[in-house]
Every structure is written in C-alpha cells, then in structure tokens.
C-alpha cells in the first residue's frame, strides 16, 4: 500500500490543476449545426461543443474539476502543469499521420490502351476504336515506366492497369506483370496488381493469369440493367449482362475478395440509389462507393457535371447511406467506402491513402499515371484534363525525363506547395482540415486556379456536408454509431 500510495496521487491533486492557468494547444473549429461546433486538433482528435463551451475554452475559463476540462485535456486541446507530456504525444501522432509523405508513391497507374468497346457519355478519357495500335502502350514505354516505378521509396507498390479497356492490350499486361515480378526479385517490395476492366473480354486465359499472379480486378457497375446500359452504352446493348457474368466468373474462379466494383453517378442515377445498392447486393459485392460525377473529360464537354449540383448529389448519398445502415442493422455487413474513409480519418491516427483527401495533395505523392504514350501525369484526373486538351498537370515523359526530373518538376512542386490546406484561405482555420484535402486538379478544372475559392467550391461544399452528416450520425444516432465503428480498419 505504501508503494501504491507513492505511485498514485489522490484525485484532489489532479483537480487542483489551477483554474484558468491552462495552456491552449493548437486546434481549429467549424460550425456543425445550429448551436454546435466541431473542435479538432492538429492530429484529428475532436469534440463536439456548444458555442458557450467553445468560447469558455478559448477564453481559458473552463473549471478544472469538470468533465469538459478532462475531455479537453485527454484529447489534447489543452495542457496544464500536470500534463505537459501532451506535446510529445501530439508530435508522435502528427508524425504517424505524416508517415505517408515519406513513403511516397505507392500507386502506379499504367494506361495500357485508350481503346474501348463502350461509348459512355461520361467517359473521362477519349476512346478510340479504329486504329488498333496508335493508342496502345508499347513494351518500350512500359519498361521506361517500370524504371520509374522501382525508383519509388515506397515499400508497397501497386500497379493498376487502366484504359480505355486495358484487356484490349492484354499481351502488354502480361508483359508488365512478368517484368515487374522479375525486377522485384531484387527490390523485394510488397508488389500488387489491379486490372480496371469492364470485363467484356474476361476469358479463361485472363482468369488463369490473374490467379497465377494474384491480380485483383476492379470493374464498373452503375446499378440495375436499365440504368447501367443507359449510362454505359455498348454496341449490342449487353453491357450489364457481360459485367454481372464477369463478376460471377471472377468471384468463383479467383475468390470473392478478388473483384470489386465502382459506380459512376449520373443525373439518371439520382432517383435510384436503393436499386443501385440492391444490384451490388444481388451480385454479392460487400461494399459500394457512392461517387459524384467528376468535372473532367466528356462529363464536362456534355455538361453532365452541371446537370445536378452538390445538394442533389448529397441527398442521393444520404439516402444511400441510410439504406446501407439499414442493411447493416439487418445483420449483413455492407460498407459505403467514402464514409468508411472518413470514419477512419475521424477515429484512427493513421493516414488514408485516398488522393483527394490529403494535404499536401496525394497527386504524384500517393499516385502517379503513366499514359499510353509515356506522358506522366500527377493523377488520373490530370490525365482526364489532358485528354480535353489541357496539359497543365503533365509532369514529363518516360522517354525523355528521369525520376528526379519528373518528381522535382516545377509543375509538381508548385502544385504541392499550393495544396497545403494549412496555408489555404478558409481551409487553414477550418475544423474539418484534419480530415479533408485540397484537390488542386479539381479546382483548376472548375475555377481555373489550383487553390480555388472554397466558398465557391463544389469540393468543399460536398465534403463539409458529408463530414457534418457523419459526425451527426456518430454523435446523435447510437445505433448508426455502433455500425460505423465496425467500419474502422484496424
């Protein structure tokens, strides 16, 4: 007992932390709803507080022996004579969050071919069908791109094959996989492959190759047959059937977790979120990503992006998330991926590798794109913009530029510098900053400026609405909170 008495101080000792003598730690806040604010610190820990509580905290008027004081102290919003260890802990957590920057580029996207058998209205890259080889990546270009891939310091490398339809140039996929594996005997990276494909050309040869090399497949599924075929027209009008057949084949041959699907939202999708989710369930997919239509490529040429605004999309997302939560309540775990991403940012110290929600931007740091012709772009969106004739974010070409020339190009360094939320007006003091990003390519595409005015930004408007909704669910809906907590990745 005597020993314990020395180790543990009495409760009163902690309560004596002198009233009003505490020091504020760096934090930010944002209005959440009528009367409540989100208060967050540098590493993303947060409290939901009332306006009077917020003011009393910042004016250093919170009495030391209250629950609010203990919450502020334990979540590192203040420190007092008793707890200056907070500075070390915050530094450690900050370093954990910033870890991804030092690891650098993990996702390397190879645009294997621009050719495609679909004629989607919203397609974000040009599609070419006649000249078979003018729009295919060559072995020579792929080799040069692989030289750059293996210069990345990231211990984990994912090579993603995109198009057009990459399976139209399957021979090159085989070449890149074999060559990358051969080179990796020396580098010993955690190497993974993904083919983003509409599955029209999925045959036994492709499946066996995927199985032999542990390749994941990612496909597009926009919803029920009518909607899918309207959004993604294909000669023969059988796109939906080919896709769901492909999903089934891949699930049974490669395994359930080796294929995922992404959806694109169009104006026609907006009234159908439940049937879109039902389509995913019917096809034994265990997650969905309710994506907004991006303002690039054919989408903007066709004015699709302007046909519905963020508010309408948000209603679509909210209805979808409500439905997903209902499915979970019935005992089936089904995840909405954007929500999961944000839940992880809110509740874990680890940084998610999602390019759009990073500061500085994840463009070229987290992901890089090698186009079929060897041009290198900071992100997939940058490539889409280039296909519209604007090569603002072209970083170089694998045939003429080396690693240092590309990653230290003025284009990239200027973009990175302009993409630090911590120095962007309206972002720098926003309570949602630790969970958000800047997306310079989006702001350049929509406002002609990589920083952009956030009061006019669809990106800011969309994310603020989502953050507020998710925090509202976590704070005010115990059942939803219980489900959302199961989505945190450990």
């Amino acid at each position: 007992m005597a020993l314990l008495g020395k180790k543990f101080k009495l409760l009163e000792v902690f309560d004596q932390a002198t009233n009003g003598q505490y020091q504020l730690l760096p934090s930010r806040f944002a209005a959440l709803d009528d009367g409540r604010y989100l208060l967050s610190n540098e590493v993303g820990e947060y409290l939901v507080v009332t306006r009077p509580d917020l003011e009393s905290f910042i004016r250093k008027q919170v009495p030391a022996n209250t629950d609010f004081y203990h919450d502020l102290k334990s979540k590192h919003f203040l420190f007092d004579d008793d707890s200056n260890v907070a500075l070390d802990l915050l530094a450690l957590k900050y370093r954990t969050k910033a870890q991804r920057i030092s690891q650098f580029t993990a996702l390397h996207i190879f645009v294997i071919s621009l050719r495609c058998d679909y004629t989607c209205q919203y397609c974000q890259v040009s599609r070419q069908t006649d000249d078979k080889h003018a729009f295919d990546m060559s072995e020579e270009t792929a080799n040069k791109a692989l030289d750059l891939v293996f210069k990345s310091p990231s211990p984990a490398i994912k090579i993603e094959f995109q198009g057009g339809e990459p399976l139209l140039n399957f021979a090159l996929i085989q070449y890149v996989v074999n060559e990358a594996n051969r080179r990796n005997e020396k580098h010993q990276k955690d190497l993974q492959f993904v083919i983003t494909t509409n599955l029209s050309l999925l045959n036994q040869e492709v499946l066996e190759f995927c199985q032999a090399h542990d390749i994941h497949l990612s496909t597009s599924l926009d919803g029920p047959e009518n909607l899918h075929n309207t959004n993604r027209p294909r000669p023969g009008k059988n796109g939906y059937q080919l896709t769901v057949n492909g999903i089934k084949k891949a699930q049974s041959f490669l395994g359930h977790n080796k294929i995922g699907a992404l959806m694109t939202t169009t104006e026609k999708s907006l009234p159908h979120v439940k049937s879109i989710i039902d389509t995913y369930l019917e096809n034994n997919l265990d997650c969905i990503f309710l994506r907004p239509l991006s303002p690039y490529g054919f989408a903007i040429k066709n004015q699709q992006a302007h046909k519905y605004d963020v508010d309408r999309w948000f209603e679509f997302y909210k209805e979808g998330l409500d439905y997903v939560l209902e499915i979970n309540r019935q005992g089936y775990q089904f995840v909405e991926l954007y929500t999961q991403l944000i839940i992880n940012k809110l509740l874990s110290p680890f940084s998610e590798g999602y390019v759009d929600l990073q500061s500085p931007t994840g463009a070229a740091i987290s992901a890089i794109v090698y186009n079929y012709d060897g041009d290198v772009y900071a992100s997939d969106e940058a490539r889409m913009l280039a296909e519209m004739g604007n090569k603002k974010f072209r970083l170089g070409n694998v045939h003429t530029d080396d690693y240092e020339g590309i990653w230290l190009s003025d284009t990239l360094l200027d973009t990175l510098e302009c993409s630090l939320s911590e120095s962007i007006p309206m972002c720098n003091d926003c309570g949602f900053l630790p969970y958000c990003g800047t997306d310079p390519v989006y702001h350049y595409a929509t406002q002609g400026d990589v920083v952009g005015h956030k009061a006019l930004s669809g990106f800011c408007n969309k994310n603020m609405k989502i953050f507020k909704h998710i925090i509202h669910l976590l704070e005010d809906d115990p059942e939803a909170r219980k489900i959302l907590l199961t989505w945190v990745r450990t």
Partner: protein
Amino acid sequence: MKEDVIIFDASVFSIDTVKRALYRFADKCSFDIQLKDNEITVKIHTDSSDDMVARIKNEVLDQDLRDTLAKETANIRTLILANAFSNTGLIQ
C-alpha cells in the same frame, strides 16, 4: 439586389478578422469595406434571402475566437511540428 450596412468597432475587432469572416460569404455577397475613425464599415450587396447581417456578425465573432486561438498556439504548434520531424532527416 439588397444592400445592408454593418459597422464594427475597430478597437474590438481587427480589420483582418472582419475580412476573413467576409471572405467566407463570397458565394452569396459582395462587399465594400472602409476603415475610418476607428469604425469598420461593411456595405453588403446580396441577392440572398438569408439574413446575411446576422450570419456575418456571428462569423466575425467566430473569426475573432479563431484569431485568439491561432495567436495563442502559434509557438506551441511550431514546437510540436519540430518535435514531430526531428530525427527524420527531413529538417536541418
């Protein structure tokens, strides 16, 4: 187009605080700002049906708190960041 005027006492709110608050309403309003005789006069031009005067006044109060928070914690923030990146070879 509606017009309203708000006057802030410059000894209570800094011009920077007021400007930072107004910046957030660029999607709804345009402004003329004048500082004269210790008064900050803000003329608001808007098409919005919202009560912009009340919203702007509340936002100025929030920005004032943000300024206090930022000033008070600037040194500690630098200290934490220096600590976070020490021994990483990233800073000299």
